[in-house]
């Protein structure tokens, strides 16, 4: 089993998705976890509680999800890589603070292991209804980076990417998983530490008197932390380069623009997707998370029956990989979006692809659309 204490040794494991997420987070340098128990994300808290104290980290179970994410934001501003994990109602409670983290450019990682919603919904069963919420859940305009794992291996790989993205761009980053991927157990290969890219904070190199925490000469300003001698002033109010509240239109506009541009200009570097048999496809299925695995089987079955079908799997939700998607549209194919909700990814796809070329297979939460159902829909699209 390798070491049960602290950082896991490199090797091949048969590991649950949620556990793989913890192992990856610790390798990425996470040393603070704040959370409140909720199914189906609990294994993440439980393993964090056991492991963090062994490697000099801190685990706090707060009174609720609002306090949890505020603790995570505080810890990150003290220079500690920090995360929380939650699901459904807990993710809703965290929304306001996600906006705060964006506003004060604090790198935090939030794991949402999706269950069926809305409200209490289906606590122990799968859902994909939080896709739009990861971008539009908090008030005001803001941006997040969102990774979409479809296996325990990707729970490991992508939590590391999430930490790297958060600390590269100083932006809240979300690992949007689901109950199936979080709970399934599969092969997970942990590489040796020197083969894993871990990004750390860029610290200011100016004298403390000259330091501007939101210096607009940078796209992503270096981040001083409380206690290192630099003045740190943080507020959710619109602020100037020093971090002080302002309503000056020019200053406000400049800061807002920079915060959006740091993601926009790096979009090509951040986006990830995967294509399977798209080169000659007449119909391309668009899916993410556990649904993409059902879709992959459906694509293989459809190919055996002679249908020219491919798969476009979203690996980042935000930024949305619209460029590769529109490139595929140029080859004259149609698209079928499959998702466990009433229609979220399909809305975004229809922003970029003419409506008449986009088909949709929505699915209620509680189960995964089986490959046979997707295949049936493929036949319908082909046979009119």
């Amino acid at each position, binding site marked *: 089993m390798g070491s049960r204490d602290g950082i896991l040794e490199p090797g*091949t*494991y*048969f590991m649950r998705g949620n556990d793989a997420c913890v192992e990856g987070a610790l390798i990425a340098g996470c040393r603070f976890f704040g959370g409140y128990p909720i199914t189906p994300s609990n294994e993440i808290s439980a393993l964090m509680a056991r492991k963090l104290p062994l490697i000099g980290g801190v685990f706090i179970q707060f009174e609720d999800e609002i306090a949890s994410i505020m603790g995570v934001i505080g810890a990150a501003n003290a220079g500690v890589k920090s995360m929380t994990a939650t699901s459904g109602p807990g993710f809703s409670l965290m929304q306001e603070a996600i906006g705060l983290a964006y506003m004060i450019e604090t790198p935090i990682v939030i794991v949402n292991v999706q269950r069926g919603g809305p409200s209490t919904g289906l606590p122990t069963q799968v859902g994909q209804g939080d896709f739009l919420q990861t971008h539009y859940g908090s008030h005001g305009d803001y941006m997040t980076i969102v990774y979409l794992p479809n296996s325990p291996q990707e729970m490991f790989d992508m939590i590391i990417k999430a930490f790297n993205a958060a600390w590269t761009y100083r932006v809240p980053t979300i690992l949007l998983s689901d109950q199936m991927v979080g709970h*399934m*157990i*599969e*092969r997970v290969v942990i590489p040796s530490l020197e083969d894993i890219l871990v990004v750390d904070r860029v610290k200011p190199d100016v004298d403390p008197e000259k330091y501007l925490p939101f210096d607009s000469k940078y796209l992503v300003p270096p981040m001083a932390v409380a206690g290192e001698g630099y003045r740190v002033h943080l507020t959710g109010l619109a602020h100037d380069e020093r971090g002080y509240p302002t309503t000056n239109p020019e200053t406000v506009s400049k800061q807002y623009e920079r915060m959006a541009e740091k993601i926009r200009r790096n979009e090509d570097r951040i986006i990830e997707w995967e294509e399977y048999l798209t080169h000659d496809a007449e119909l391309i299925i668009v899916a993410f998370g556990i649904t993409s695995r059902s879709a*992959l089987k459906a694509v293989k079955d459809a190919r055996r029956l002679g249908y020219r079908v491919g798969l476009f799997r979203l690996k980042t939700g935000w930024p949305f990989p619209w460029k590769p998607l529109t490139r595929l549209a140029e080859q004259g194919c149609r698209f079928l979006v499959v998702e466990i909700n009433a229609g979220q990814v399909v809305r975004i796809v229809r922003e970029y692809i003419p409506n008449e070329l986009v088909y949709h297979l929505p699915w209620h939460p509680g189960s995964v659309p089986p*490959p046979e159902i997707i295949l049936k829909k493929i036949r319908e699209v082909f046979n009119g």
Partner: protein
Amino acid sequence: MDETKIRLIGAGGHGILTLGRIIGETAVKNGMEAIMTIGYSPARRGGWSRADLILSDEKIDYPIFTESNILITTTQETYDLEHRNVMEGGLIIYESSLVNPKIVNDVRQVGVQAFENALKLGNRVVANIIILGFVNTILKLFPDEALLEVIKSRVKARYRDLNLRAYNVGRRIAMDMVGVV
């Protein structure tokens, strides 16, 4: 090899999930692919737990299945629940002191007295390891050493010998069954 779908189901505490994890871990550590999903009856004492495991030489696309090739079941309730969901030509392995098997067409059924034999070894907990020794001897999924290696890494040193003996009891029961092996 095509995908082998194994459904393990029994009462909570029967070591069903551990059994699934041992088989899956042995698979991935020996170059195969394995994926396991877990199900429970609504939480209550005496409820059942289920591990659905797929083994394959190739990457497994989709983890969920309805019908299994092999059903391993340790209670009458779970046998009744699942015995009709076994594919033609499949195999049911059941705990024979707790399960009265029914007639299932085109499916082979084999019983093993795991709990009684575990008690003889001094600990009911190793019944699942007896089942493992039995199952692997019949199905020849892995070399015995590969499984024992994984068992050894999962149990405390003072229980290793007990588990090794349990495995061998299961193996012996299978070997003694004329016509099965």
